[in-house]
């Protein structure tokens, strides 16, 4: 099947050649982090770590939105789904994440109206078609997703929809990268920056990080040749002692980003402190609704009062999310925690580091 802008970057011979170039260039121990969960999946699916010289280690970062959603927030989602007359709408990944006592999937099996949607806009249409119900969209995602949720809220206001609201558990990538850079255990030499977050925020968003921590940052696409090209660019920078921001995904990403999407996001949301699963509170790393849009805030509308909760015993998701531990170092991995019976979020989400390891290693 012809898939333009995808198949060209899956060519085995090209990938092999880039790997050769990396082998020639990499002369010292190099530790790189791929920040984005979609990169983690592509790296595992395409066996990229295995192609690289032993001196290069790839660590997975906190780039899976489901995985970094605090358990207290998921408890709040579950509380919401149990309310009379509420239709809870969500991206599919969130359904199976176990919270303190239940999951959305279990609540659905017990009669809650929980629906999987492909877009925040689908949720808005469900609200329009069910005027007797309250329809809530569980807004989790990074800068790629937040503008789509903001656009749905603006449209809901335009259409005068009173039965549509959103839980804003959106999170921002640059603040968490700043936290990771301060973690002395990681000893990172370079960052493979997320491709689709960068479509929105632009590669310029990493300049402060590159300058402050002298770390090379390269934005990568998602096909094997894209990722290998980014690794090659990082290795070149590291060998030369440089630390600049580059783009290995120029067909998709600019330095400036998508200004229209940024404006829409900014119109609806303002930054706030946010709790990241396994990492804790990070200042100004979340998004909440601006005052003008508070009537669409499900947390206020339904008094969810989200609280902090304890992680499951033995689960190492917290350390795995920041690259300090690999999944195989978790005592539960592959034993009590599998993709069929996941305990932590990293095993639930299709983009979770544990799920990727379990499936492909």
């Amino acid at each position: 099947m012809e898939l333009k802008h995808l198949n060209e970057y899956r060519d085995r011979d090209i990938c092999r050649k880039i790997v050769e170039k990396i082998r020639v260039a990499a002369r010292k121990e190099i530790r790189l982090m791929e920040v984005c969960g979609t990169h983690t999946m592509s790296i595992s699916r395409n066996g990229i770590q295995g192609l690289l010289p032993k001196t290069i280690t790839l660590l997975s970062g906190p780039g899976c939105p489901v995985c970094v959603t605090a358990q207290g927030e998921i408890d709040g989602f579950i509380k919401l789904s149990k309310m009379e007359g509420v239709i809870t709408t969500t991206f599919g990944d969130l359904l199976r994440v176990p919270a303190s006592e239940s999951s959305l999937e279990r609540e659905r099996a017990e009669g809650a109206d929980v629906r999987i949607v492909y877009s925040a806009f689908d949720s808005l249409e469900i609200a329009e078609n069910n005027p007797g119900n309250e329809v809530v969209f569980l807004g989790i995602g990074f800068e790629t997703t937040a503008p789509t949720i903001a656009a749905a809220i603006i449209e809901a206001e335009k259409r005068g929809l009173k039965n549509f609201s959103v839980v804003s558990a959106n999170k921002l990538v640059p603040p968490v990268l700043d936290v990771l850079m301060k973690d002395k255990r990681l000893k990172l030499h370079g960052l493979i920056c997320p491709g689709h977050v960068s479509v929105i925020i632009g590669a310029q968003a990493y300049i402060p990080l590159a300058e402050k921590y002298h770390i090379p940052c390269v934005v990568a696409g998602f096909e094997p040749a894209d990722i290998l090209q980014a690794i090659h660019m990082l290795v070149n920078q590291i060998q030369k002692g440089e630390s600049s921001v580059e783009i290995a995904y120029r067909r998709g990403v600019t330095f400036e980003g998508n200004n229209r999407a940024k404006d829409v996001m900014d119109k609806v949301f303002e930054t706030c402190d946010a709790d990241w699963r396994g990492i804790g509170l990070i200042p100004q790393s979340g998004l909440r609704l601006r005052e003008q849009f508070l009537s669409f805030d499900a947390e206020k509308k339904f008094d969810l009062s989200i609280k902090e909760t304890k992680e499951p015993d033995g689960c190492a998701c917290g350390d795995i999310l920041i690259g300090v531990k690999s999944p195989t170092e978790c005592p539960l991995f592959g034993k009590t925690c599998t993709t069929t019976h996941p305990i932590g979020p990293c095993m639930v989400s299709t983009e979770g580091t544990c799920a990727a390891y379990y499936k492909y290693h």
Partner: protein
Amino acid sequence: MCLAVPMKVLHVEEMTADVDIGGIKKRVRLDIIEPKPVTGDYVIVHAGFAIHIIDEKEAKITLGYLKEVLACGTETSQ
């Protein structure tokens, strides 16, 4: 979650576009993209929204570079 794929634009209306990937057709929103795409463009689609028009010129440059990589150093691999 930040999964997004390039899809070909078939038809554009004020706030929506019909797009195609490998024969699968979808309708996507254009609320967060400026300028709007035109028929024949490829757009990156995330969660039902077009978020970027693929830069064909940049794609050609990248592919040209990758082909160069493939051409040079062939002797070292044999």
